[in-house]
């Protein structure tokens, strides 16, 4: 090996300092990743797993006994482990729905809910098969009095609509907020109130099986 000159020693020192700074910066970025804007997403897919064919023959006039298959997808991009709840509600056109601007959920009581703890970037698909088992007519109004969801029958006077038009299944996404220690429907992101919900409209115009 050659004897190193003072000038070369200076070059070597500069390279050593430069690599140390560069590697330290990279390690710092790896250890302290920049927080990204967190969000939840929810979708409802039809029977083929696509955003189409939500009803048999694409007819939203649902008949008694007809089986309808949907898939509800929930995606967690909050950057953390989240406890999510999908609340299922049955509404008509005049029932108050959720308010996206104020982040208020629908006051209508839920039929049932689905719960899961999701890791960051995890997607959860919930099969949702439903059948209108019973509907009763009183004058011009039709009430849904029996509905089967995922092979479980729910009985009661759930919702009434004029001539059986404009019922809707509402899916609200709730999550457990560890600060308030409560289920929360909305969250604040960059000063804006955010909430996730989805709904699909249908009619039950006949009270008899086809």
């Amino acid at each position: 090996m050659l004897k190193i000159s003072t000038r070369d020693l200076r070059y070597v020192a500069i390279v050593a300092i430069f690599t140390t700074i560069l590697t330290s910066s990279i390690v710092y970025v790896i250890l302290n990743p920049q927080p990204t804007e967190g969000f939840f997403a929810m979708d409802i897919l039809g029977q083929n797993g696509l955003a189409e064919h939500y009803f048999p023959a694409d007819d939203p006039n649902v008949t008694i006994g007809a089986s309808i298959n949907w898939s509800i997808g929930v995606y967690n991009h909050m950057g953390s482990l989240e406890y999510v709840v999908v609340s299922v509600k049955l509404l008509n056109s005049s029932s108050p729905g959720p308010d996206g601007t104020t982040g208020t959920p629908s006051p209508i009581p839920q039929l049932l809910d689905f719960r899961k703890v999701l890791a960051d970037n995890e997607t959860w698909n919930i099969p949702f098969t439903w059948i209108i088992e019973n509907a009763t007519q009183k004058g011009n109004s039709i009430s849904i009095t029996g509905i089967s969801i995922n092979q479980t029958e729910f009985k009661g006077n759930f919702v009434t609509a004029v001539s059986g038009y404009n019922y809707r299944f509402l899916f609200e996404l709730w999550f457990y907020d560890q600060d308030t220690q409560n289920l929360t429907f909305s969250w604040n992101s960059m000063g804006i109130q955010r909430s996730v919900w989805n709904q699909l409209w249908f009619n039950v115009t006949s009270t008899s099986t086809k």
Partner: protein
Amino acid sequence: MNYATPSSTRRLHLRVALLVIVIVLVVSISATQVNSQSGDTVALSYQAYGEIAAIYRSGGRAPDLVAKLNTALEMLHSAQLKSAEGDDQGATALENQARTLLNQVIAEVPLAQQQAKQEVVSQTLSLLLIIPVTAIVSTLAFYVALSTFRWYEKMKLFELRIVEKDAED
């Protein structure tokens, strides 16, 4: 004919009323018990989630505990469905299973927390070790390259001198 006197009719009414009150009380107490049990299990699931989330917040992971917690949540969902079908016994049995599983998850959290801490420390250490290793290796590589270049320069100069000397001769 046997006629009831007003006092006996009143007594009968009183008995019926008492019986109705007792039935209502029993039904409401059992319903409250079922509801409060369900509420307790849900609260327990929040507690389990909170403790697992703390592991994730500290940089660790506990996928096994998350899977167990999700199994308990599925049981709670099934209990909800059984209750809707009117099968309160089945619902209570499922809730009890879910509660047992949730208690198991909560009991396993400290060990998972410790493992997660160790994982985080070893990951941080291995990342920090990269700094001196990279600096030393790259500096050494630069030193070798510089030395080779200097040696090449010297050889070239030496060759030049030989050529000059040959020309002089």
